[in-house]
C-alpha cells in the first residue's frame, strides 16, 4: 500500500489529478474514522475529512515524501480537528467537553461517578458502548492520543511528529485517558482525584 501510495503521489504530482481519487479511496475510511472519534459527529467528521483531502491535494506538489502520505494526511486531519474543537470551545457556553477540559485545566474535581454502572456483570457489547461514550467525554487532548495510539496504533514518536507535542506529554495524556476510561467502565473504581486529571 505504501509503495503504491508513492507511485500515485508521483502521478498526481506529474499532473494526473484524477489519480488523486485513488488516494482518497485508499485513505478515506481511516481519516474519517479518526475524525469521527475526535469530533464526535458524522457530519463534522465528513466535512473535515473532505477538507483534509482537499488540503492534501493543494499541497501535494510540495510533498517530498519525508513522511508517508497517510501520515501526512492524518496530520492534516488532526490539525483540522484541533481547530474545530477550539472553535467549539470558543462558541459554546456549556458542553461536556468544555466542562471536562476546563476541570482538567483548572484542577477542578472531575466526577466520573455518573458513568458508573452498578451492575457488576455487563456484556462486552454494553461495555464497548460505555467506552465509546466515555471516549467522547474525554478532554480532546486525551481523546486524541488515546484514539491515535491505542486504537489506531500510531507510535508516540509519530504522533509527536504530527502534532508537535513531546513524547513525554503524549504519554502523560495517554495514561490519564486510560485512567478516566477505566473509571468510566468500572463499577467500583476509585474516584479520580483532581491532581490525576490536570494536563
Amino acid at each position, binding site marked *: 500500500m505504501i509503495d503504491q501510495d508513492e507511485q500515485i503521489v508521483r502521478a498526481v504530482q506529474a*499532473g494526473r489529478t484524477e489519480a488523486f481519487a485513488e488516494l482518497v479511496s485508499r485513505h478515506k*475510511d481511516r481519516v474519517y*474514522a479518526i475524525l469521527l472519534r475526535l469530533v464526535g459527529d458524522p457530519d463534522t467528521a465528513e466535512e473535515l*475529512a*473532505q477538507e483534509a483531502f482537499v488540503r492534501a*491535494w493543494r499541497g501535494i506538489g510540495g510533498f517530498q515524501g519525508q513522511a508517508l502520505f497517510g501520515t501526512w494526511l492524518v496530520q492534516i486531519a488532526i490539525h483540522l480537528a484541533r481547530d474545530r474543537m477550539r472553535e467549539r470551545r470558543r462558541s459554546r457556553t456549556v458542553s461536556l467537553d468544555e466542562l471536562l477540559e476546563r476541570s482538567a485545566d483548572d484542577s477542578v474535581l472531575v466526577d466520573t461517578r455518573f458513568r458508573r454502572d452498578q451492575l457488576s456483570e455487563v456484556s462486552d457489547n454494553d461495555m*464497548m458502548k460505555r467506552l465509546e461514550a466515555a471516549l467522547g467525554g474525554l478532554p480532546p487532548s486525551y481523546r486524541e492520543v488515546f484514539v491515535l495510539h491505542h486504537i489506531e496504533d500510531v507510535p508516540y514518536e509519530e504522533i509527536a511528529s504530527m502534532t508537535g507535542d513531546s513524547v513525554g506529554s503524549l*504519554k*502523560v495524556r495517554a495514561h490519564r485517558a486510560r485512567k478516566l476510561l477505566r473509571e468510566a*467502565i468500572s463499577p467500583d473504581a476509585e474516584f479520580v482525584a483532581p491532581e490525576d486529571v490536570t494536563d
Partner: protein
Amino acid sequence: MDALFARYFDGDLNDREAREFLEAIAVDPRLEKELREFERVLALGKALPFPKAPAGFTERVMARISLEKKRETGPERKPFRLPVFGIRWAGVAVAAAAIVLAYIGGVYTARNRPVTPATTVTDISPGFANQAAAESGQRYVRLAYVPTNPSVEKVTVVGSFNNWDPEATPLRRQDGVWSTILVLAPGNYEYMFFENGARWVTDPLAVQTRDDGFGGSNAVLEVGT
C-alpha cells in the same frame, strides 16, 4: 504505583522494573484487578467498530478538487471571437439541451471592457434585454438544460464567468427545462452544469468542448461582439 502502571502500558519498564511490577501485581489482588481493568479498556478500544466514510465520499472530494482546479487554472479568455447569434435548440425529444440566445444590442460603447463575473437574470423580457445590452455593451445569453434524471432538484451553471462558483448561478426549472439568462461581456467562456451539488455534466449540445483535466470536458461558450 500509578507511574509504574503508566510506564508498563507504554512499554517503558526495564527488565528489572517489569519483574518487580508483575511480582507486586501477583501478590496484591487490588492491583491485579486494576491491571485487568486497564487491559480491558485497551482491549475494548481495539474492538470498537470501525466507522467507514459515507458513500459517495470520494466523488464529493473529487468534485471539490475539480472545482478548485477550475478556479485555479481558469480557461483561456479570448475577448473577440465568433459571435453567438440565434438559437441552438434540440427540441423536447433530446435528453439534455443547451440553448444560447444572443440579443444584438445597438451601439456598443465599452467593447474592450474586461470580462466581469456574469450577472444572472432569470425574469427578463427580450425587449428589456435588447435595451440593456445596448447600453452596457454586453450580451444576454440564455442557458438551458434538460437533465436525463427527472428527479434532479437543483442545477447550477458553473464556469469562468462566475469564477467557478457552484452556488452563484442557479438555473430555474419550468416545464422540465432548467434555464437562466446570463449577461456577459464578449469573450470566450468555459462552463459545466452541476446537478444536485454533486454531479458535473458537460453541456451535451456544446459546439465546442475543452478537456478539463479530470477526464471530462468543459463546454466552451463564445460570446461575440
